[in-house]
């Protein structure tokens, strides 16, 4: 962090000394349900529109109203978008958490707060800006019922004045937020102006943080991962969507419904080229996906850990009966009544082998909103090409937070529907064997129900069957089938998305990470280089099974740190299943599991500490 160990008394701070530009984290502490979302999104958007790389993370409780919630905005001229452990700016609006929020600030940090909270008494090494929120909101919002919602906009104005955020961008942000509701834009903007004016009249800048226009966000978008998954599914040509609400995955399907209603209604007939059903539970949601996938639809569901547990039996069925299905898993911490609104990479090990008997599943692991989009499309292709359930492993941090990204690329490859025989094909061939390995890749040919050819029909079962899909309990048939399924999984190894590898050529330290850990790892790599002179190689996994490049990466490094956002080093455990002992001995673990997104400092410190123990 650039600003550590600044121990200055308020009076000693010189605003003109060492201005820190476009490098700060703002933490906004509010009460859940107090309508802070608009103020926070608009602030994020205004900074983004000023061309400054920015990210926003919402740390919220499992509650509709009343509990503390924190929104963190990080602006970084260097483009770092991972969470930071500390914030330079605190906006303290919540009486319940305010004292603790202030006490955990680093010396030299800044606190904008509701005057009534009298926080100044707590510290002498923090810059305080007290704001009389209630007296300010009353004149701009005569309707007392709306004040609670508008009140938060005042801190947008205060921050704009203190940091140099352009009010014009706040206004544009509001217009984006409220679209055509001009009255709402005006009301909220006048509240922001009231904050801006108050700050201009009453505050002398006593801190060193500034935001200045730059040009690093041109052509970029801001979107959350769940919306990106939804867009990916729509452009993948999904036709059947069945789901059951669960945090943090619900917005995948809710957003998808909005997009599909807008863009997937047949123009001529006004009818839907899709069916979306909210099922009675996850058992039914995934069951419908299996029924639809078997019948030839591109079918999906979205869920999180507890839902995955309920989908376990059907996922195994899909593996054995060889049914295409796409399951978005927006991971969170466990268990069902744990911390449902906190992030973790909690389902890696479970999903890899979900269900009973011998099962292995393809997992795609996006690290960014762009990959949520592209890997969602790829997941549908792979599910049909491999005739098997495929998981898209996102997480709460990626799924529910706003991320900056390049505009998504339109899919270039046509939709791949895999090995499907038509009635004519079957007639020409004189029949077909559903589960026969004709091509040596372990993947059989399937027909779709309704194909008008008597020889095309078959009866799918999870239980023992021979190549012709006929019920069989013969040991040979069972072994042949199991070995073919294993062969199919081996084929997948070379077809799933390859890892992204950054070699440094030294071969000493390697880091393996996946998903949202990526953003903390790229920052940690810079910290290691700058602070320790350590150059580490980096391999970002994008799929399971692991492709050969991943094994090569491990072989070519002396020590390999595997970064997991879970307690038990779940990804590292998967390596243990696959690797030979001398390779396993190279593996070390960096784990993060406090419910918050992983940050670079934690990774750097852990690696430095373990390297010291060489």
């Amino acid at each position, binding site marked *: 962090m650039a600003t550590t160990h600044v121990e200055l008394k308020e009076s000693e701070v010189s605003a003109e000394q060492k201005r820190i530009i476009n490098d700060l984290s703002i933490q906004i502490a509010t009460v859940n349900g107090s309508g802070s979302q608009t103020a926070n999104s608009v602030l994020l958007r205004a900074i983004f529109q000023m061309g400054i790389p920015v990210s926003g993370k919402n740390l919220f409780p499992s509650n509709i109203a009343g509990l503390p919630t924190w929104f963190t905005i990080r602006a970084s001229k260097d483009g770092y978008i991972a969470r930071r452990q500390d914030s330079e700016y605190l906006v303290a609006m919540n009486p319940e958490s305010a004292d603790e929020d202030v006490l955990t600030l680093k010396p030299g940090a800044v606190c904008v707060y509701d005057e009534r909270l009298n926080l100044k008494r707590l510290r002498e090494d923090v810059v305080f800006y007290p704001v009389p929120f209630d007296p300010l909101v009353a004149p701009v919002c005569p309707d007392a019922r709306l004040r609670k919602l508008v009140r938060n906009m005042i801190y947008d104005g205060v921050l704009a004045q203190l940091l140099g955020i352009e009010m014009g961008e706040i206004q544009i942000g509001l217009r984006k937020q409220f679209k055509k509701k001009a009255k709402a834009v005006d009301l909220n903007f006048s509240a922001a102006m009231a904050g801006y004016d108050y700050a201009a009249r009453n505050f002398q800048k006593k801190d060193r943080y500034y935001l200045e226009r730059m040009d690093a966000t041109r052509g970029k978008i801001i979107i959350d991962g769940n919306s990106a998954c939804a867009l990916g599914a729509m452009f993948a040509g999904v036709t059947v969507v069945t789901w059951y609400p669960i945090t943090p995955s619900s917005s995948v399907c809710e957003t998808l419904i909005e997009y599909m209603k807008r863009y997937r209604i047949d123009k001529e007939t006004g009818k839907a080229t899709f069916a979306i059903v909210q099922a009675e539970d996850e058992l039914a949601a995934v069951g419908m996906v*299996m*029924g*639809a996938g078997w019948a030839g639809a591109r079918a999906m569901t979205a869920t999180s850990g507890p839902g995955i547990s309920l989908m376990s039996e059907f996922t195994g069925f899909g593996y054995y009966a060889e049914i295409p299905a796409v399951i978005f898993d927006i991971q969170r911490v466990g268990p069902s009544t744990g911390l449902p609104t906190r992030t973790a990479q909690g389902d890696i090990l479970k999903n890899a082998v979900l269900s009973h008997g011998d099962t292995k599943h393809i997992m795609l692991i996006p690290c960014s909103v762009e990959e949520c989009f592209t890997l969602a499309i790829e997941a549908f292709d792979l599910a049909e090409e491999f005739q098997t359930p495929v998981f898209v492993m996102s997480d709460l941090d990626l799924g529910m937070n706003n991320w900056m990204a390049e505009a998504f690329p339109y899919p270039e490859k046509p939709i791949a529907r895999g090995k499907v025989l038509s009635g004519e094909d079957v007639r020409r061939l004189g029949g077909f064997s559903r589960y026969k390995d004709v091509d040596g890749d372990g993947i059989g040919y399937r027909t779709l129900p309704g194909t008008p050819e008597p020889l095309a*029909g078959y009866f799918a079962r999870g239980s023992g069957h021979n190549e012709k899909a006929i019920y069989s309990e013969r040991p040979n048939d069972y072994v042949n089938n199991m070995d073919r399924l294993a062969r199919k999984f081996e084929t997948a190894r070379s077809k799933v998305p390859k890892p992204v590898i950054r070699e440094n050529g030294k071969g000493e330290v390697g880091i393996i990470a996946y998903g949202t850990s990526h953003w903390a790892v790229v920052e940690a790599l810079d910290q290691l280089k700058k602070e320790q002179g350590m150059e580490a190689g980096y391999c970002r996994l994008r799929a399971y099974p692991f492709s050969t490049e991943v094994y090569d990466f491990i072989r070519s490094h002396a020590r390999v740190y595997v970064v997991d956002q879970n307690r038990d080093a779940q990804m590292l455990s998967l390596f243990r299943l696959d690797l030979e002992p001398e390779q396993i001995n190279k593996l070390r673990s960096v784990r993060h599991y406090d419910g918050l997104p992983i940050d670079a400092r934690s990774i750097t410190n852990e690696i430095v500490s373990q390297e010291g123990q060489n």
Partner: protein
Amino acid sequence: MATATIPPASPAKVNRVGLEVADYKGNKSTLCAGCGHNAISERIIEACYEMGIEPHRVAKLSGIGCSSKSPAYFLRTAYGVNSLHGRMPSIATGAMLANRDLIALGVSGDGDTASIGVGQFVHLMRRNMPLIYIIEDNGVYGLTKGQFSATADIGSKLKTGVLNDLPPIDTCALAIQLGATYVARSFSGDKRQLSALLKGALAHRGTSMLDVISPCVTFNDHEGSTKSYSYVKDHDEPLADVSFVPYFEEISVDYDAGSTMDITMHDGSHMLLRKIEESYDPTNKVGALRLLTESHDKGEVITGLFYVNTKQENFLSLLNVVDEPLATLPESRVRPPKEVLDEVMQGLM
């Protein structure tokens, strides 16, 4: 045409789609000899043959249990899935969402439906998805050797002497209350009634729920059982004499307009119900539920068509799904063009 047609050399009897009865058969049953389920399979074969159903359009779907094995024993050339215990409703729903041209024929058992699968059963009934749901109901778990299921009557006795002390779930009453639009109970031993009810279900475009009492000859056909052949024969009270006249045939049965009710089905076929006792109106939901409660209290096994509603919108039309199967829509209709992505991206900038 004016030219004379030459009759085929071997005049094997075929139906209106040119298929023989043999074309509707399945693999050899592996169920016990005398199992009621085999009789039901026979009636399904018959009904599909007589209705001229094209087997390739049929999706046979089942859960787990003796009943759920039976789809292998009819319509060999149809498509099918033998899925998980209690999960046939979700598989069937998914299949119909994917391809609305299919005729989904779900076969379940009493354990599969009323115990492990009651959640999915209940919600399926609410949706009125066009499909046929048959419960092959013997009151016991056959495949795990004869434990009671949730449709077993109070006081019914297991072979081991154990008495059932919990009330049964009446799947027909549940189905009617929740929204199924064709609800009937029959007996695997009543060929004529079951055949007519199956054909009616094939003509219906909504959820058809048929609870068919199907004695388990191995575990539940003894004295003291209320699902044995002899018990059901003695206590069967048919509600009406049911005849079915498909839309492609003239109504030629004699019927007395005063005592017979004619119900026109979605495809134009007719269900003719010649009443045996009182005046019963199968389009009246409340009356249907009252009848089931009263007959249960009297210890009767009442059979027949309890409820039919041909007006209720089905799930696929509620979802406003295109007329063609979703499964095979071409890429041009399921992947929006680049302009759409550009528009969405613009909105996010």
